[in-house]
């Protein structure tokens, strides 16, 4: 017979339940609504509606697939289990690297064409600063 699970809970969280899919849909609807409203105010209601529908479709994936463990983990965010949080962290780092690469290439392209390099210079500076702050903060905490 297996022994009772130990009380040590460091690094382990309760497993996310299927209800997380509905939360993801609500967040998607809210964000889609904000995008639609912003586009409407900016004079582009049809483009806003398109953004809203994309967000609805994105949220619907979480509801339709809520029985899938992967979908539940995606919807769980920080409550996901340690393996999924590790995957999420690496995926986020990959996405960040892709964005920073594009920003640097776009900045070089812009200055090579005699332009100021904005807004890519500012975006690159924000990324670099955020990295340094995170580095100092994480170094201080560990």
């Amino acid at each position: 017979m297996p022994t009772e699970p130990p009380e040590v809970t460091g690094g382990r969280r309760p497993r996310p339940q299927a209800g997380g899919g509905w939360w993801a849909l609500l967040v998607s609807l809210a964000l889609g609504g904000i995008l639609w409203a912003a586009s409407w105010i900016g004079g582009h209601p049809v483009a806003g509606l398109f953004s809203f529908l994309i967000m609805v479709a994105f949220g619907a994936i979480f509801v339709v697939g809520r029985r899938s463990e992967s979908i539940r983990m995606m919807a769980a965010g920080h409550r996901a289990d340690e393996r999924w949080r590790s995957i999420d962290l690496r995926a986020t780092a990959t996405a960040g690297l892709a964005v920073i690469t594009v920003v640097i290439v776009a900045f070089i392209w812009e200055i090579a064409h005699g332009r100021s390099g904005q807004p890519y210079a500012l975006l690159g500076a924000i990324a670099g600063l955020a990295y340094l702050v995170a580095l100092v903060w994480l170094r201080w905490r560990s």
Partner: protein
Amino acid sequence: MKNQVRELRTQRGLAQGQLAEAMGVSRQTINSIENDRYTPSLPLAIALARFFGRPVEEVFHADRTA
């Protein structure tokens, strides 16, 4: 990192989902650990070892052939 999780689990007649439930992780995580695709955190490794009533170094050990 090699481990004996699959052997210990099957000896006890547990499904991956049952062990996952007991550990508070997903079934996929247990599957990945058993297939040496994921090395668990120290707290999870200790929890698994305690669950099976074995020392952690008996459940998890370095892959000396790697």
